[in-house]
């Protein structure tokens, strides 16, 4: 079957300067630069101090671990509001098992297992009852997971995990000048990024997020992918719980509150639409570091965390309105 009309179709992408500049990541990067410039001019002598900067960054890395699985979940067009509750329950289990057995290894194992099972439960509920909205299910399991932790702990805390030095150094330890946790974070970023953008699984996730029916008819196991991703999210909650315990050394039932919304906020700001199928992991990472540096920089000049939240919230709302504004401008031009 030769081409009848002799028409050829190009298969090499022409990248124009305009199209690169108009990419979401480029806009984000400008915001990132702006944040740095503002921070620097606010405290010129302190801001680029390496140890300050790294310590400031480290603050955000524990909850930041959730960004990776949340990126996958949003990419699928799903949402997971239960990650905060899951981290809390996993951390609780870590503390309890450690205190009961004296083995931090056993504690970590139990925490990761707990997180994974919780994620699996989310996944099973959502894939067996496909009629249910993920928002409702994970809202309920969030209450449930945190509720179990609250039932176990009451108003007490489980503590003592920082007695194990190497465990504590998961958060506080350094390799040269760089904290272990930052290295781990960056390695995870690379892994998750490659999976999302360079593998079959990643492409299939994009397909599911764009159009579940088309994905199904293309022979993709839509529900299988959702189950895997939700379980993976649970696994990452277990890992996050480990770092949480290393950082704080004690767990109460309000641990990791709001992690889910922080992670969703980073992803959306990074261009991963909650509608599914859109966005990049590098985008989410730029957004993550923008927010992290904003918090650090404004913290240097003693601006309170709550005011920073106002700025982050405003940034989120304004940034997601950019496409609408662009459309308006386009329409206006055409009319002229």
């Amino acid at each position, binding site marked *: 079957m030769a081409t009848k009309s002799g028409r050829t179709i190009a298969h090499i992408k022409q990248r124009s300067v305009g199209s690169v500049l108009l990419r979401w990541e480029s806009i984000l990067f400008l915001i990132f630069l702006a944040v740095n410039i503002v921070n620097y001019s606010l405290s010129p002598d302190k801001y680029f101090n390496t140890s300050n900067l790294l310590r400031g960054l480290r603050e955000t890395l524990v909850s930041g671990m959730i960004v990776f699985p949340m990126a996958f979940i949003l990419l699928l067009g799903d949402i997971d509001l239960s990650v905060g509750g899951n981290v809390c329950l996993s951390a609780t289990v870590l503390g309890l098992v450690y205190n009961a057995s004296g083995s931090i290894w056993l504690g970590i194992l139990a925490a990761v297992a707990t997180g994974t099972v919780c994620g699996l439960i989310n996944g099973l*509920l959502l894939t067996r009852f496909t009629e249910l909205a993920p928002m409702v299910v994970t809202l309920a399991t969030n209450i*449930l997971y945190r*509720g179990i932790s609250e039932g176990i702990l009451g108003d007490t805390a489980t503590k003592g995990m920082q007695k194990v030095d190497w465990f504590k150094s998961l958060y506080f330890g350094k390799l040269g000048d760089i904290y272990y946790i930052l290295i781990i974070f960056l390695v995870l970023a690379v892994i998750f990024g490659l999976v999302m953008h360079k593998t079959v699984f990643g492409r299939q996730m994009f397909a599911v997020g764009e159009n579940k029916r088309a994905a199904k008819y293309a022979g993709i196991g839509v529900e299988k992918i959702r189950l895997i991703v939700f379980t993976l999210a649970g696994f990452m909650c277990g890992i996050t719980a480990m770092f949480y315990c290393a950082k704080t050394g004690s767990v109460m039932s309000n641990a990791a509150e709001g992690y889910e919304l922080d992670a969703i906020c980073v992803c959306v700001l990074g261009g991963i639409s909650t509608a599914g199928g859109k966005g990049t992991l590098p985008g989410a990472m730029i957004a993550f570091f923008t927010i992290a540096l904003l918090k650090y920089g404004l913290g240097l000049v003693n601006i309170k965390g*709550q*005011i920073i939240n106002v700025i982050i*919230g405003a940034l989120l*709302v304004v940034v*997601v309105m950019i496409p609408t504004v662009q459309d308006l401008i386009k329409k206006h031009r055409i009319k002229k």
Partner: protein
Amino acid sequence: MTVKQKTLKKGGKLGEVLRSREISLLLVMVLLCVVIQWRSGGTFFTPGVITQLAQNYAYTAVLTFGMLLVLLIGGIDISIASTLAFSGMASSMLMQHGFLTNPFMVFLVSTLIGLGCGLIIGLVIAKGKVLPIIATLGFQYIVRGLTYVISDSKWVSSDEMLPAFTQFSLDSFLGIPYLAWIFLVLFVIVLLVLKWTEFGRQIYAVGSNAEAAKISGINIDRIKILVYSINGAIAGLAGAMFTSKYASAQSNMATGAEMDVIAACVIGGVSLNGGQGNAVGALLGVITIAIISKSLSLVGIDAFWQQALKGVIILLAVAVNVLVQRNNDREVLKGREI
């Protein structure tokens, strides 16, 4: 004409089930109450407990009716707790500094502040075309942050409030606390508006099929802005109820209340996809949430387990709903002649 008769029957059956949804929820609730009453040795149904329950959950109930409207148009608002805190804090501070000298004015101003917040959110969603979950996530941060900013993270304590204002939540009329009156009146208003006014029916139309609503000449943006504004106003009202009830205003008040409120709606059969649900269901949902929260300690379960139980009940409610629907569909299929 057998084919057509079947369709008729199907429609009737489906309608029947939908209509009986509230009935079945009511039955479950009655059963729950009976069990609690029995297990608690008769300590549950006492005027004291019921009054206390009504006072403690009045603000949640009020928020539920606002959320009902938002969910009906297919939206969601997770910023209501922040709006509640901001309006409650702002109005309390105005009272603290002597600008408001009448408790009624405090309620009014708080409601108006909430209305303002809701209006901005509505504009961002309708005109800025931002997904509701994202927009209200942003405003959750913004409005809560602003609460800390205006209060400088300080409390307004009861001795800085008007005595008449804090007394309001303790008083009752005809044996029913004022706070309960507020949500009962609001319930009746929402019920009537949804069923008997054009605005109410437009809310359903937008949630059921936005595209069709647009073609029917309904101004969708206007409905959205109105609904989010009303929801904001209700959150503002709840802010005044909250500060009156707890006789203080703190920046972190009612954190996470939106989750309880959405849960109440879900239990009450309000669909997150829009177009389905009503005020009766929402009321039953919030009562169920209130009963669970209160009853555990009465039946000898550690009160710390109430959140976990709440989670399980929401899951059960939605899962049963799905199973009933599936069974229904299967029956319809089986009944179809080939």
